[in-house]
């Protein structure tokens, strides 16, 4: 872990994206997965939604350079493609606040150091409206206090404890932490009859 990996607060201008159950096929359609790297994915984030809707927030000038995405219910449901959070991250998203998240998407975001916080419906709606009124103003996601601040208002925002600890301690890239178990991994393997061959 390095100090750059610590995610205690995420600060940046907001971009509201209303709508529920926005799946990862919409975040990044499958045809853009035909690559052996994640490079360039930012150009295709919400590709079809943006074509179909010229007023899509990701098309709007005032939200260019935003870093905090505000979403509704069950954002990122569907496919496990990490291309979805990668596309968002490469576009510039550093943190997400929403009503709820698809579970695999949440895990993928955490693994990329992008915190996803959940807040109450009314608070999320308020935040979407407030950001739309003041797109130049910064949002603060505070993982340690479990809150989101915008202007003079603070709303409660939660993140499951395990992910929160990974993010605030900068250990969200799990490989290193998992490797620390060393031989204990092989010990568990040997204890399992199906690994031993019964």
């Amino acid at each position, binding site marked *: 872990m390095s100090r750059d990996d610590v995610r205690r607060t995420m600060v940046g201008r907001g971009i509201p994206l209303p709508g529920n159950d926005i799946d990862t096929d919409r975040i990044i359609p499958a045809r853009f997965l035909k690559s052996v790297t994640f490079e360039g994915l930012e150009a295709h984030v919400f590709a079809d939604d943006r074509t179909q809707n010229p007023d899509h927030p990701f098309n709007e000038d005032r939200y260019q350079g935003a870093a905090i995405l505000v979403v509704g219910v069950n954002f990122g449901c569907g496919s496990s493609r990490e291309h979805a959070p990668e596309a968002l991250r490469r576009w510039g998203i550093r943190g997400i606040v929403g009503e709820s998240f698809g579970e695999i998407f949440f895990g993928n975001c955490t693994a990329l150091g992008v915190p996803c916080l959940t807040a109450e419906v009314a608070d999320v709606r308020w935040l979407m409206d407030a950001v739309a009124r003041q797109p130049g103003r910064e949002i603060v996601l505070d993982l340690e206090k479990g809150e989101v601040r915008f202007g003079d208002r603070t709303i409660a925002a939660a993140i499951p404890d395990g992910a929160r600890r990974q993010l605030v301690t900068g250990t969200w*890239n799990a490989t290193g932490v998992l490797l620390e178990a060393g031989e204990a991994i092989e010990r568990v393997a040997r204890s399992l009859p199906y690994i031993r061959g019964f």
Partner: protein
Amino acid sequence: MAETLLDKVWRAHTVRVLPSGQTQLFIGLHLIHEVTTPQAFQMLREAGLKVRFPERTFATIDHIVPTASQARPFGDRLAEEMAVHLVRNCKEFGVPLFDLDSGRQGIVHVIGPELGLTQPGTTIACGDSHTATHGALGALAFGVGTSQVRDVLATQCLALPKPKLRQIRVEGRLARGVYAKDVILTIIQRLGVKGGVGYAYEYGGSAVAAMSMEERLTICNMSIEGGARAGYVNPDATTFAYLRGRPFAPQGEAFDRALQWWKGMATEPGASFDDVVALDAGAIQPVVTWGINPGQSVGVRDPIPDPAEASETDRAAWAEALTFMGFQSGRPIAGTRIDVAFIGSCTNARLSDLRAAAAVAKGRKVATGVRALVVPGSQAVAAAAEAEGLHDVFLAAGFEWRKAGCSLCLGMNEDKLTGREICASSSNRNFKGRQGSPLGRTLLMSPAMVAAAAVSGQVVDVRELLT
């Protein structure tokens, strides 16, 4: 205290509790494919790491393969590049690959069970959200993203919080013309597409107990469509009979020892759950989706619902779905004209699915103007279907008979919808743009219902065609 399969598998595979409070869970089987792994192998290379348990890792190629002809090099340059990378990565890291010339290639969630790799009481990971499929054999199987694929390659472990457990009991008997697909679509409609977030689903009850392994695979496959990352059925006599003799299942006396261990991993009577939901199997109808997520469905004889009846949370999504689909609430879903019929995917492209579809297609013709394709889930499924002449039934009826792959489930190969085409599909996702055309429309249903729609040119109740 009586324990669940989840409890037992979790404990047996726990390496340690991590500082984050999550569990470091040992993964007994890692299945990989070409789309979600090239970046993970690259990360391994950059970190100077090896694959920790190459003998517990198996690869196949499924998402990008053309299904008309599978001759290499593929016509699509990008698809070819992905295939080249997969072969190279598997070779460099010592991972066995079920390649196109192996006779064992197929959709990752079809070949795992088919080869006997998927076994009760084990943990499984795959960089694919439908990994819960393998839970049908009593495994705890998780869909993961590319970073976690890297974690498993490097450490054979995942960092995970233990999920809560919901038991879903389906009691009674399914009516004729009602299939496992209708059961899982009904469950998702009932509990919602995010009802399972934070949960694993244990499917049980007399209807599930009576199901074949292939039907259970269909049920578990769509767990993620209900928000649950994992779903399983307790291993029983059906499971053991299915596994006996499969290439990677234990053989001879080892099989008997395995059987004892497998039995011991099942949920014990009296175990408690975080939640229990019961469904009456007899009340389930053939189901068709009318919207843009798998929870938006109705019985084939029911009208398309009105957003005014939706909960406040769902109202806007229902309205958006109707607009996208060009459907009107109050109208019956039956009678909807279709352009394409797709029988395939990890949900419904096994032998029993093809048999059910062929029974409907037999002696009938695909309606004029409908493009119909059957894409077997694996090379083994294709061979078995051909051995009993199912391909002839489909070809005579005017269906295309293809090679194994994901195909039109996600439209990463040449098989795509065009424009606003409507597809009757046995796959698992009806998301906007899912089948390759940004405006394409998907109606999810059972394979028999797809065959019925193909020969009728419109959505019909398959029960009217079953003699």
